[in-house]
């Protein structure tokens, strides 16, 4: 086998050392640092972007929470305002109806008094007219002259 021919051993070892050394110098000097830096820079950027995204999400969550809190607060406030307004309206309505009721009662009372007065007057007239009629009737039927006062008394007695 040509592999075991020692003629070329020295030459092969020599060129291997020379070429490998140059190759190592180039790779270690110009390749691995740059590739490593590129990979590291990418990892750093991804990490940074993820961290940024995380902090942005946190901020968004905070804002959403604040929004929801504000919404709940304003909802409660609106409820309170509505309750107050309703209570005020109810009170006002009650006051109004109470006042109107009082007015109405006064009016009814005065009307009733007026009716009672009118009835009394009417009744008094009726008594007078009844006395007259009774006196007239006594004169025409019995030929009796009855004073009006007597007739009135008799009519009152009859009515009683």
């Amino acid at each position, binding site marked *: 086998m040509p592999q075991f021919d020692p003629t070329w051993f020295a030459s*092969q070892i020599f060129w291997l050392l020379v070429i490998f050394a140059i190759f190592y110098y180039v790779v*270690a000097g110009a390749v691995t640092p740059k590739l490593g830096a590129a990979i590291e820079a990418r990892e750093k950027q991804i990490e940074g972007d993820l961290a940024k995204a995380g902090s942005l999400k946190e901020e968004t969550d905070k804002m959403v929470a604040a929004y929801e809190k504000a919404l709940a607060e304003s909802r409660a406030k609106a409820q309170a305002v509505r309750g107050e307004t309703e209570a005020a309206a109810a009170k006002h309505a009650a006051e109004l109806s109470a006042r109107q009721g009082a007015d109405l009662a006064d009016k009814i009372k005065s009307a009733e008094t007026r009716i009672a007065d009118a009835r009394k007057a009417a009744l008094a007239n009726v008594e007078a007219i009844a006395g007259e009629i009774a006196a007239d009737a006594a004169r025409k039927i019995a030929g009796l002259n009855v004073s009006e006062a007597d007739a009135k008394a008799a009519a009152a007695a009859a009515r009683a």
Partner: protein
Amino acid sequence: MSSPLDQFQIKPIVPIEIAGLNLAFTNSALWMTVAAAGATFFLVSAASGAKIVPGRLQSAAEMLYEFIAGMVRENVGDEGKKYFPFFFTLFMFVLFGNLVGLIPGAFTFTSHIVVTFTMALIIFLTITLIGFARHGTHFLSLFFPSGAPLATAPILIPIEVISYMSRPISLSVRLFANMTVGHIILKIFAGFVISLGAFFVIPGVVPFSVLVGIMALEFFVAALQAYIFTILACIYLHDAIHLH
């Protein structure tokens, strides 16, 4: 017809002799240069314009980078980080050597035991030095598993020493034998295609289709052996740093 071993023949291109040593620039050195230059061209053009969002070339180079970085991290640990450029260079050199050797008519320098053994020996010696530098004489405890009864020392220590010393041999022979055998098989089947196809077209198709399959297999072997060569170097470094 040429022998299947002819492809491993070394031919001088530029004869050089220094201090009585034959240091000729040969076809082996030429293809070593091609492999290293090809890998350099690929890696430098991928790395020179490295961006946050990588292009195709940069993605491919980064995949290889992360593959070897992961291998070093898993097999050596965090202490292996500073040796990463060496392992990356080693992997790319062997990988491109194996792949370039698959070009018809090319020379596969990784099919030469001298080359693989020199690489393995450099790895072995460097790692042994790192071990002694880190642990001093305590590094020798690598040859005696802690917890084993002292009486077993006369048996265990020679076994551990021999297994440690045979590492560069097994490492280099594995790569050399795989590449050599693969290329011999390719050559033999290629010979069948020629000898059968020259007389009958149809029978030549059979070894040709086998040849296509073996070629695909050899691409796989080329990558796999580069991987095995590098990962074993990582594991040896792990032993030197962590002592089992």
